[in-house]
């Protein structure tokens, strides 16, 4: 098992790229602007989760998608909360899994109970290593406290927690910048499709040692 406790070493492969500079250009349509504006305006006040649950989701999300300190963090927990508030479901659940709202409530309660049992402290007060340890045990299906009910901890971890947190993180433009994705694309799509081809409205990837060149190009991405 790889070491999850170290901070992410996210290479800055697309220096200076900000997908939001394309926001008012032909790559975004009105519907997209509306949807992304709403996403960017999400505040840290939970609408579905309780304050305690929200803090717990924040702590868990920080382990699932650790963020660099060089930019404002993506409000992952708030995005998860909004999806629950809007009651946007997956369209299926495996036998034994409650519906998504109930699964989150129960899973968070159980995770907290496991933290208290194992370390006699709330999850949010554990060290990162301890938090990872608990999450790994959940992932492996080893957590069996009564609070889980008939929901298996590995089902909760994989099908609910991991899924929702990862989807929330990669729904945010800041995450798109990190991976050099072109972002929204309508009405304008793309012209240059072959290998190593990029349109002037796509992120330029930095060659090692030539970050400044890429940054200069990326400033012109519109």
């Amino acid at each position, binding site marked *: 098992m790889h070491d999850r406790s170290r901070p992410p070493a996210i290479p800055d492969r697309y220096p200076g790229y900000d997908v939001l500079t394309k926001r008012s250009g032909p790559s975004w349509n009105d519907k997209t602007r509306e949807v992304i504006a709403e996403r960017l305006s999400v505040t840290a006040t939970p609408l579905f989760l309780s304050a305690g649950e929200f803090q717990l989701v924040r702590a868990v999300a920080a382990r699932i998608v650790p963020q660099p300190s060089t930019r404002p963090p993506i409000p992952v927990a708030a995005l998860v909360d909004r999806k629950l508030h809007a009651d946007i479901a997956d369209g299926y659940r495996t036998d034994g899994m409650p519906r998504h709202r109930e699964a989150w409530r129960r899973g968070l309660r159980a995770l907290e109970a496991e933290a208290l049992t194992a370390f006699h402290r709330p999850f949010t007060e554990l060290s990162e290593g301890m938090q990872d340890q608990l999450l790994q045990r959940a992932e492996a299906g080893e957590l069996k406290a009564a609070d889980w009910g008939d929901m298996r901890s590995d089902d909760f971890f994989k099908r609910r927690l991991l899924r929702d947190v990862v989807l929330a993180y990669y729904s945010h433009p800041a995450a798109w910048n990190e991976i050099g994705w072109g972002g929204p694309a*309508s009405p*304008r799509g793309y*012209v240059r499709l072959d290998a190593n*081809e*990029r349109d002037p*409205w796509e992120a330029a990837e930095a060659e090692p040692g030539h970050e400044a060149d890429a940054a200069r190009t990326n400033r012109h991405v519109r």
Partner: protein
Amino acid sequence: MSNDTDWLVGAGLALSAIAATAMLQPSPPRRLERKPASLPSRPGPHPRASVRAARRLNRAAGMLAASVLADSSVEHYRGSFKNKAMYTPLAVSALTLAMSAHGTADRRPWAHRLRDGSYLLAAATGLIGTGFHVYNVTRKVGGFSWQNLFYGAPLGAPMAILLSGLLGFCSERVRDTSRAQRPHVFGLPAARTIAAVTAAGLLGTSGEAGLLHFRGAFHNPFMAVPVTLPPVGAALLFKAAARDPGDDKTRRHPLTRAWMWLLAAMGFAGVGFHAYGVSRNMGGWRNWSQNILAGPPLPAPPSFTGLALAGLAALGLMREHPDA
């Protein structure tokens, strides 16, 4: 590829548009019909007829060069000028354009060394460009497949600058031989040779349009026009080229001339159709940064105009020189 090449493409487009317009301006009326007293009178047509034909050929070569300049600017910008050699057709077609403008204005009955050189350069560029484009297609996975013929470097495109060079070169030969009994190109009768070259060019260009319009599934019935009218024009030109030089009655070729004017007009109408095609794509002209590149190529159709002008020049020479 950086975005710094944008200006270059813009400049290329603007220059070619201005040049194409200028090329089509009627030559200034010759108010002073000075008799070239220095030339001794001699039997046969007046050399001025040959010079006029040569100037028309310069104009045709210039029109083709303008089309190439604009087209290669756009297409090679689309290709991000990945290979430095991709700047070559821009420079060469710009030079050819300038030389053709010079030739169009020049009434002297002899060839111009710089023009000659640049036309040869253009022809060579066309040949080498074709080689590059063939290489580009073959090295892609799938090789000579419809996919790569449709979307790889267009094999026929560099032929346009080759044709421009050839027509220009012919123009200089016509000038050079204007005082001779019979204008000729390498000993071949000039008018008929040029007619044949132009006819071949029309067929090739029509083939290129056919390939790309086939790619577009001929979704608009007008897309059939550039694959039907030019071959007829080519046939008429071939027929003119093969005429019996002794038969005075067939020297005027009114139908062929009319057809050439039709093709010239078609070349310009094509720009309009292609502009409409761009507007039909998602986002229309507002999404120009994609649709200029992905839509039908605006600068391509005037190459038909260039060839039609060359055809007219050849026919004009034919009319005035029975045995050209």
